[in-house]
């Protein structure tokens, strides 16, 4: 019954879908879509002007797919007047996530289509794509060289620094401008400097939307959140990979399709997300996850089966999150390692470590320049709240299960 559990971080991931694929169209039979294959699969690209683009974005309620879920139309409207730039955030520095890499390596033209549409509608001349995956950078450069129909818009592919925090949008913008790739200490929104920065999948969704129109786009998904979404499925499932699903699909459907054994928990939203009970009725949408006390984030879903030590897995990720602090902010630099040590001590059976962990979590919360400390704290505390029985077993001498290293860590190549 048990699947063989191998962390997968570097390999090209399998792709599959529930319902007709949009973003992943054509990838079932081809390794990657060059310009010719892309045109064959997706068809010609309309170029809406700005009012038309905004109407499409409003009608489809398209939100950013990097984690924060901000409406793209509102982002475009918030731009200050003057010269504009478009930045595609392809950093994907979450080790459990692979969806942007799959898009950028295998369907780069779809992402570039969306970025060029937004740039042309804004009258912007430049699209920057920030990636730190070498294969994605190669695929994008090859794709950019193939393109001829982008008019005045030029595409530049920049290989950026790795690191979880370096993928934060404001850090990426600073990195592309030749500054240290770190979040700024003061409130500094890219839109205030005429910069649109959004996740790679967001732009691929734009490319799908302008071709389908808002009505057909909304034939999938929920009324509040139309369309499909990419998710990266990992952990104890027989068919891990990048999957395209209608927004709002029940968790049970996805787990069945993925071949999941009985589970202790799922982790939704990646390592800034949360541990949740594997409730088959849970709706995989922003609203559904929020109702369950979690976040959709960038669509990472990890299955934790009953044959691994969940508290040990939590401790591994807590240690990784501590190591990913960029070191700029004291409470994060010192607080996250303290929190990670607490979780380790708890796994080793020390009862006092639980209240200490909750205290450290509270001390760190809200005291950083970016969302890393809060995201890390949310991940750890949701795990500590969910794993009550597991914690009791550890305090009574151990859960008897090995730590199988089910949750992928390390910077994905």
């Amino acid at each position: 019954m048990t699947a063989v559990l191998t962390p997968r971080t570097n390999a090209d991931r399998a792709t599959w879908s529930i319902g007709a694929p949009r973003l992943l169209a054509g990838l079932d039979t081809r390794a990657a879509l060059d310009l010719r294959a892309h045109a064959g699969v997706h068809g010609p690209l309309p170029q809406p002007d700005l009012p038309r683009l905004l109407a499409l974005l409003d009608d489809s309620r398209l939100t950013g797919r990097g984690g924060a879920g901000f409406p793209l139309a509102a982002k475009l409207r918030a731009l200050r007047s003057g010269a504009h730039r478009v930045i595609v955030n392809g950093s994907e520095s979450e080790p459990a996530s692979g969806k942007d890499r799959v898009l950028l390596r295998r369907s780069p033209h779809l992402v570039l289509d969306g970025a060029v549409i937004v740039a042309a509608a804004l009258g912007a001349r430049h699209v920057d794509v920030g990636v730190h995956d070498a294969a994605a950078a190669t695929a994008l450069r090859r794709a950019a060289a193939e393109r001829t129909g982008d008019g005045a818009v030029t595409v530049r592919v920049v290989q950026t620094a790795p690191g979880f925090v370096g993928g934060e949008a404001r850090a990426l913008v600073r990195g592309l401008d030749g500054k240290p790739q770190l979040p700024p200490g003061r409130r500094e929104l890219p839109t205030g400097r005429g910069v649109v920065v959004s996740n790679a999948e967001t732009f691929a969704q734009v490319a799908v939307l302008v071709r389908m129109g808002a009505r057909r786009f909304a034939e999938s998904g929920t009324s509040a959140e139309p369309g499909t979404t990419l998710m990266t499925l990992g952990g104890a499932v027989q068919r891990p990979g990048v999957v395209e699903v209608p927004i709002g699909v029940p968790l049970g459907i996805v787990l069945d399709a993925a071949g999941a054994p009985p589970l202790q928990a799922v982790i939704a939203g990646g390592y800034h997300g949360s541990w949740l009970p594997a409730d088959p009725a849970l709706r995989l949408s922003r609203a559904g996850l929020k109702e369950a006390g979690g976040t959709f984030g960038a669509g990472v879903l990890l299955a934790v089966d009953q044959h691994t030590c969940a508290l040990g897995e939590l401790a591994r990720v807590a240690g990784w999150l501590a190591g990913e602090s960029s070191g700029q902010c004291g409470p994060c630099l010192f607080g996250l390692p303290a929190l990670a040590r607490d979780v380790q001590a708890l796994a080793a059976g020390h009862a006092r470590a639980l209240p200490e962990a909750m205290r450290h979590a509270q001390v760190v919360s809200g005291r950083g320049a970016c969302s890393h400390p809060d995201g890390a704290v949310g991940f750890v505390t949701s795990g500590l709240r969910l794993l009550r029985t597991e914690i009791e077993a550890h305090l009574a001498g151990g859960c008897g299960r090995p730590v199988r290293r089910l949750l992928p860590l390390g910077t994905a190549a």
Partner: protein
Amino acid sequence: MTRAAHAAEQERLRVDWTRCDGHGLCAALLPDRITQDEWGYPIVHRDAVAAGELAGARRAVAACPALALRLTRGDER
């Protein structure tokens, strides 16, 4: 002034965490509203500064050797 407008005008103490080195002068000067965590970094318990408290708050801002403590209005950071 409406309550919302008043809240937007309210001056608040903010820490730029990328600058703060935990020198602790703010906690020494404003002990009733700022304490230090176990690593010496400030915990601001009450960030809204009333008109009568502005002079003391400005003194703490000026004393910060890292220029990390600020007084801002509304949702500025």
